């Protein structure tokens, strides 16, 4: 018997004993909302919750330039579709901006600017969707990742975001920078991926 057949037959045998099979509980997703996290407008809630998970909201390109310069992050990648809105301004301010991510130089990029397809206000998460995010690695290897999005793309709650996932093969909710507490429970940010996760509204 194949493993598949064996498993299905074992499951069916195991379940013959279950007399009262539990029904699917019909529930309203509203039971999941955390009201305190949702206070204020979606943008306010997102900013508050994203900040709480060590994310940083940048409200203008000028602020982004200042931030990158102050942190010494002067070389990076920018999704070609974001050059007009973001990249050119950075280049004009003297930063080095590349529009092709060269995998062999994965350590050279200090920042990566990619398109976030949305955000979740309730949890302070950025949504990266393969259908629109140009390169997963460009959002992972640099120390600073900047997800660029529009205010209208913020989902209010987690169930809302779930309902709006869409057909893409790969979607990521990034709720803050990569982090660990494996060593003695001490929180360290920037384990494998970005140490700084930024959201830029355009």
């Amino acid at each position, binding site marked *: 018997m194949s493993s598949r057949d064996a498993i299905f037959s074992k499951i069916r045998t195991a379940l013959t004993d279950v007399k009262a099979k539990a029904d699917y509980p019909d529930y309203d997703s509203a039971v999941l909302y955390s009201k305190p996290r949702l206070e204020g407008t979606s943008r306010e809630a997102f900013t508050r919750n994203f900040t709480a998970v060590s994310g940083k909201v940048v409200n203008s390109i000028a602020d982004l330039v200042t931030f990158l310069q102050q942190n010494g992050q002067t070389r990076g990648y920018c999704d070609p579709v974001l050059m007009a809105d973001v990249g050119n301004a950075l280049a004009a301010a003297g930063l080095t901006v590349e529009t092709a991510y060269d995998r062999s130089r994965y350590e050279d990029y200090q920042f990566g600017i990619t398109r976030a397809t949305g955000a979740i206000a309730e949890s302070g998460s950025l949504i990266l969707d393969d259908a629109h995010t140009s390169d997963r*690695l460009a959002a992972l290897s640099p120390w600073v990742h900047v997800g660029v999005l529009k205010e209208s793309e913020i989902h209010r709650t987690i169930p809302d975001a779930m309902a709006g996932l869409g057909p893409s*093969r*790969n979607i990521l909710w990034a709720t803050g920078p990569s982090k660990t507490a*494996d060593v003695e429970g001490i929180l360290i940010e920037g384990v*494998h991926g970005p140490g700084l996760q930024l959201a830029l509204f355009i």
Partner: protein
Amino acid sequence: MIDHQLIDTYAREISEEKQTSVISGSAASTDKRYTVLFKDYENPDELRKLAGKIKDHTLHHLDSYLEQAEVSLQRNGVQVHFADTGDDAKATILSILKDRGISKLTKSKSMAAEEIHLNPYLIEHGIECLESDLGEFIIQLDDDVPSHIVRPIIHKNRREIARTFQREGIAADYNDDPETITRRARVFLREKYMQAEAVITGGNFISAESGRLVLVTNEGNSRFGMAPSKVHIALVGIEKLVPTDKDLAVFLNLLGRSATGQQLTVYTEFISGPKDTSQPSGPEEMHVVFLNNGRTDVLESNCREILRCIRCSACQNVCPVYRQASGHAYRATYGGPVGAVLSPLLAGKEFPELADLPKASSLCGACNEVCPVDIPIPDLLLRLRDKAKREKIHSPGAPPMSPFATLATTPSLWRTAMTMSKAMNHLPIQVAPVKPLQEWLGQRTLPEWHGGDFRKWFNSRSNKSKQS
């Protein structure tokens, strides 16, 4: 020599340093969980019950959901495999790798892989297989096993880790600063990710409706592992299904909060197939291996509720026995309350070897209270104790209960014993001639005996109520 339960012996022998790490680590996680749950929800209990019901429903219809998941995954371009045993799973994974000439891979933390000892098997077959979760990576370097579901190295301190890094050449010198340790691992591991041709992950959930596989990590290691590699293999227990995408929201909300006190785990990835051709990074091929390895035996048992478990570790963190003994004391992949139920059941024929685990519990009920899917763990522990008794499995440390059983089931004897035992208050019982009793009393002082007073109180109370 006095017969002790194995966990007791382990707890006694564990170094104080390790015990302190485990106690403080698990206490901190418990505190965070409470704060977040009660700040966010007026009634978190309601959610726990809901999650338990969804899981129960899924398990009771597991055959149809598994079939549905298979169809959905295939529709998404995923190759689906079934593995009835651990050996089947290992052979399947190896043949996927061999067929494609893959010799280097990174692996993100997976308890199911731990359960079937996947790493040593692949390494034996010439595959370089590197753990990428920081804790698991350290465990691998030390040739150790995880002692906690979420924080595998809860039992290690920074000094040990720094020595390991130095010994293994990950670091040129000794440095035990946690940030330095993490940065060194970062540099080492990302180079490996970039070279790897495949990635093996577990899977936290699969939605039968959409065939989305959900993976959560805080470090982002599975995402980084997947981005440059060509093949993704996910090893997933057959119990990890949920009916719909909507249900995923329920479980993700509970998992993050229960595991680490976060609303959501940092990297929550929804994967429904290999990368799109327009994408430069991501696996071109994706496989899901559904693992049974005894889960259907658990489903058939009277402890099937344990299959609701979402591996959040909240029960480990809150368990007084786990805290004293640490996960290694459970001698199996899953430790703590969940392990005390799941490990003996998954052991199959080797059940007798782990039949002592359900006894190592005070049945305080804390595990049930914190469990985000409302598993009645103390009840399951009792059912397993009963199973061990019926199968006449002796385990060390179990006191002979038959004299007590006679006493407790013969009312006249019980009454006499209760009244007579008052004499104990005047006897030097510390010098009792029974060795286990001496030892037990050596660590405790007994309060004054009040046995038998309840009946007196009850009788006088019912007399009074008759009079009034």
